[in-house]
């Protein structure tokens, strides 16, 4: 026992000394005049013509769709809450903007996972932050919710001026945003639309309008195939909002607008090409010619698996749409193997929240239910060249 105690004592001593060393915190504070100068300099920065690596404008906001009234049906209400999260939420009083300019502000960006898409997101943010001369830190929990919570605590501890958070889970984000709000740190939700409850604490959302995009894509396909057919769905990971936006959303959309588009099956093989291939091959066996359309939640691994299965079965007649836009996906569109994908600029996904943060610090009124959607488009074989080269 004695030795354990002595070891523990050592730990405490070391901890104590390290603590003492770490306690000198920089004294902050700017005079009023400085703040005004800063604001002026900040307002002078304009990044609206900066383009991403794919040649598209970084800062295009898409137009927001009108919000339909709340449905009364419980299931429909759940979907409505997902789709229009934050758009009509009664928010808590937002933290007022210091209105002293973005320059030199400490922006902490918390991402979801280490993935090429996120590398591109980070790229976009970095471009924007450098333009705004803001202090920028980017943390990656790599898909671990537990780690992400740690980063939130850490951001609070480091006294970030603003936190940009792509929560790993819509419902779990309630506590995350609440914590930030309680600590007096404004937060912007990006990439991932949090749940309606969470939106109460969020300054603004910037995200791809997955629901809108997929309605667009679904419409595109339905009109192309003549409004009737059998649809097989390959989903995103169940439970997340992409799952609802890219699968349930389309199912509902067709139910409402194109009753001829029948749902054949919904499967979740994950982002694995061989498994998707197997599922699609099984569909071909099971449904035969009834299978005319496939909706994919991902345009790389899933798309490769699905198109291969179709190719092997000689089913060039099946219409395939997918969420975009990776290089693989665009190559497939170009090759005519996929009929259409959505446009989702990863770099804009990273840059737009920075722009919104800049507006916030520059004293621009964001509005009470601010939602900034990324530009929307359907990429088809005809226009795919405009979007090359891909961001990731």
């Amino acid at each position: 026992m004695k030795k354990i105690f002595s070891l523990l004592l050592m730990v405490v001593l070391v901890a104590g000394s390290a603590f003492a060393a770490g306690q000198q915190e920089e004294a902050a504070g700017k005079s009023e005049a400085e703040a005004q100068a800063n604001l002026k300099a900040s307002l002078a920065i304009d990044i609206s013509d900066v383009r991403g690596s794919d040649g598209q404008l970084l800062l295009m906001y898409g137009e927001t769709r009108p919000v339909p009234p709340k449905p009364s049906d419980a299931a429909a209400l759940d979907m409505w809450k997902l789709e229009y999260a934050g758009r009509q939420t009664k928010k808590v009083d937002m933290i007022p903007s210091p209105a002293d300019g973005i320059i030199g502000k400490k922006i902490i960006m918390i991402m979801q996972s280490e993935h090429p898409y996120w590398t591109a997101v980070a790229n976009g943010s970095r471009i924007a932050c450098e333009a705004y001369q803001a202090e920028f830190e980017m943390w990656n929990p790599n898909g671990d919710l537990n780690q992400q919570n740690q980063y939130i605590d850490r951001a609070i501890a480091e006294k970030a001026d603003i936190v940009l958070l792509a929560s790993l889970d819509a419902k779990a984000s309630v506590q995350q945003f609440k914590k930030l709000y309680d600590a007096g740190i404004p937060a912007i939700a990006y990439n991932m639309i949090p749940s309606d409850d969470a939106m109460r604490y969020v300054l603004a959302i910037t995200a791809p309008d997955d629901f809108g995009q997929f309605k667009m894509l679904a419409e595109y396909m339905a009109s192309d195939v003549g409004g009737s057919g059998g649809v097989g769905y390959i989903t995103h990971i169940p439970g997340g909002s992409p799952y609802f936006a890219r699968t349930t959303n389309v199912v509902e959309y067709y139910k409402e607008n194109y009753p001829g588009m029948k749902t054949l099956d919904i499967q979740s093989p994950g982002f694995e090409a061989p498994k998707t291939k197997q599922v699609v091959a099984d569909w071909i066996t099971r449904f035969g010619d009834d299978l005319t359309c496939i909706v994919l939640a991902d345009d790389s691994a899933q798309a490769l698996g699905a198109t291969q299965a179709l190719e092997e079965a000689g089913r060039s007649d099946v219409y395939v749409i997918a969420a975009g836009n990776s290089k693989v996906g665009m190559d497939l569109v170009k090759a005519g193997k996929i009929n259409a994908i959505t446009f989702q600029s990863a770099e804009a996904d990273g840059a737009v929240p920075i722009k919104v943060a800049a507006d916030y610090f520059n004293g621009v009124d964001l509005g009470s239910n601010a939602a900034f959607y990324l530009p929307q488009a359907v990429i088809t074989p005809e226009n795919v060249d405009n979007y090359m080269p891909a961001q990731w």
Partner: protein
Amino acid sequence: MSNTKQDIRKTSHNSFTLIVNKFGVFFMILVLSVVGVLVSPSFLSSTNLLNILNAVSYLGIVAAGIAFVIFCGQYGDLSAPMTMATTGVICVEFMRYGLWYGIIAAVIAGAVIGMINGFVIGKLRVNAIIWTLAMNFILEGLVRWSYKGTQIYPDMATEKTYTTGFFLPIMAKLDPNIMDIDLVSRAAAFNGLATTYPLGVPLVLYVMFGVMITGYIIMSKTTFGNQLKVVGSSYEVGKMSGINATRTVMMAFMMSSIFASIAGVFMTSLNQVGAFYIGQGYDFQAVTAIILGGMSLSGGRGSMIGVFGGVFTLGLISNILTLLGIGTFTQKMITGAIFITVVAVNAKSLRKLGRDYA
């Protein structure tokens, strides 16, 4: 206890148990096939059967490799997923000089990984699970670190591409003309690996059968395979029989990594991109297939034919359940339950036959 016959024990208590035991997995395939026929009339069509095989071909290649490790009395090779990813990106790096360069580089890289695993496990007798897990971490860190979180496309050649990776920066330094290589046609050849259909059957299926048959021959016909059998059923006995046990274990791990690297090359080709996430989950799946195929963790028992059976069974279960319209996650649950039941029943029958447990 009235039996006083001083004889060897009867080798079979019950011929049915023995049959189930011996042909276990094929007996299950038979049952599943009957279910399949009942479920869908097109179940027995050649396209469907081909689909089933096709779907498990990557798993089959990995499993054929890991089977050597399990045959060797080790628990498995958890470094297989990252071996697949690592060799995949190395293949993409080297295919700039030609497809065969890429494949050979990948296989060599796989062999080196396997050699390290095998040396540590064979010589120092480290627990295979822990060591290969550490190896998996290390490889993952290396791949992520060298590619800075991006993925590497076979047909992309930018300044940025040549500054990341394992060998690309070196290659770019040695060969200033590397930017001029016509990557698009090279990439087409590479991506074609997964989309070539000689005689209407995917190439990867030939490869799987090739790997399985090679594995079968190596495991049961060669000197190494027969020595592996002895070392696998008892390391000490192998060592005391004048067999170089360390080398045998090392070669088993090398087989595993080499086969994983072949699967990695094909997976990378299928995904048309080299990245760290390729091959995730293949370690446990392979172990599942191998154990279903009748290999025992204590080593030295089972064969490559069983491994094929196990892999095929997994494909069958998934096929039938999809044909029934059952969702992926319920499928997972059912597969897991079937696996546990089969293993428990098998262990019981083995004990009934007076053998040690699985």
